[in-house]
């Protein structure tokens, strides 16, 4: 009996390790996470509008149908990225996700406080390599440090009423995501 109890205790401990390691490994091994779903639809470093979710088809689950959405799937390995979005009449937000769907930064139009949301995205290494003079004007530039070299920038514009969807989509069409010019 004691022997059996010991075997079961061992199984419980080992089971706990299996449980924790599978939970921790899940983000790295998931085949259907948001990035994988968006990869075939979105070119790298280009802002691409997503189709509105319908009952029959949606790019991702739990998308808010009241929003027009555009995604910039970024890769910072070749240089930094510039992101510019005009503010729509209703509500606009920009959210930055790592490769594993962790939202590490989000800003809305009111917090941006201007008519356009303008951001520079770079890795901490690229940020450290910025020339000193540019650091002085950093207050005017919003620089975001990306924890991972790849990830997603998601721009969302609200259509408060169904008829305003074209306005929200027009906001997305005027936004841009592009590789910043390389310093000489």
């Amino acid at each position, binding site marked *: 009996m004691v022997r059996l109890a010991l075997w*079961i205790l061992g199984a419980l401990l080992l089971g706990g390790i*299996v449980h924790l390691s599978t939970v921790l490994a899940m*983000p790295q091994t998931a085949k259907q996470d*948001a990035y994988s779903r968006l990869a075939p639809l979105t070119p790298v470093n280009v802002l691409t509008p997503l189709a509105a979710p319908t*009952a029959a088809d949606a790019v991702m689950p739990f998308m808010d149908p009241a929003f027009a959405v555009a995604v910039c799937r970024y890769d910072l390995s070749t240089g930094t990225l510039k992101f510019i979005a005009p503010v729509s009449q209703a509500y606009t937000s920009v959210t930055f996700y790592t490769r594993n769907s962790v*939202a590490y930064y989000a*800003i809305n139009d009111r917090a941006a406080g201007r008519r356009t949301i303008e951001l520079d995205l770079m890795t901490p290494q690229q940020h450290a390599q910025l020339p000193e003079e540019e650091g002085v004007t950093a207050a005017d530039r919003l620089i975001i440090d990306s924890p991972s070299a790849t990830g997603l920038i998601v721009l969302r514009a609200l259509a408060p009423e169904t008829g305003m969807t074209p306005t929200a989509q027009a906001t997305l069409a005027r936004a841009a995501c592009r590789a910043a010019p390389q310093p000489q």
Partner: protein
Amino acid sequence: MRLFFGSCFTLVLAAIIGLGATWFTLTRGVAFGSLTVGAWTAWPKSGSVDIDPYARASIARTGELPIGTGDGVAFYAHTDDSGNVLDGRCMFSIAGMTPAARYWTLTLYDPQGRLVANVIRRHGFTSAEILREQNGRFVINVGPRARPGNWLPSGGVEQFILVWRLYDTPIGVAARTTKEGPMPAIERKGC
């Protein structure tokens, strides 16, 4: 020989316990730091770098992108205030007020996060669309058959869930988690 069978037994049992616990926690949506008001539950930390490993795993599995903390907060309801499952063949009313937010949206999904097909192609309401009473309160009727006022069709599905998203809101950002209400009450009105 006894050692061999014992080890096999232990390893099989460990695999069942470990994988079973993982499956259970990911399908049930276990995550820490939840914020519950009535039937509504939000996980404000899921939209930040402080997201816990369970929420990370769950998001990786479903493929959704959580709403960022600087953007807003999402409240999920799987039952009404009395604990009844949200059945698409029953009538429910959602009534009351909402916490402070610049905009909100209410959306009806099936449990997998897909929109539910219906004839009028309405999947939710925004704070700008809703018809309100004079004191600012509102009533939304959720059910399979058309209702006057704010009708959110449930398409007769077996089970649905409601997601209330508050945009540009102080909720979830502040450290205090008490006195967050009021969130609207969900009540079953018959089947």
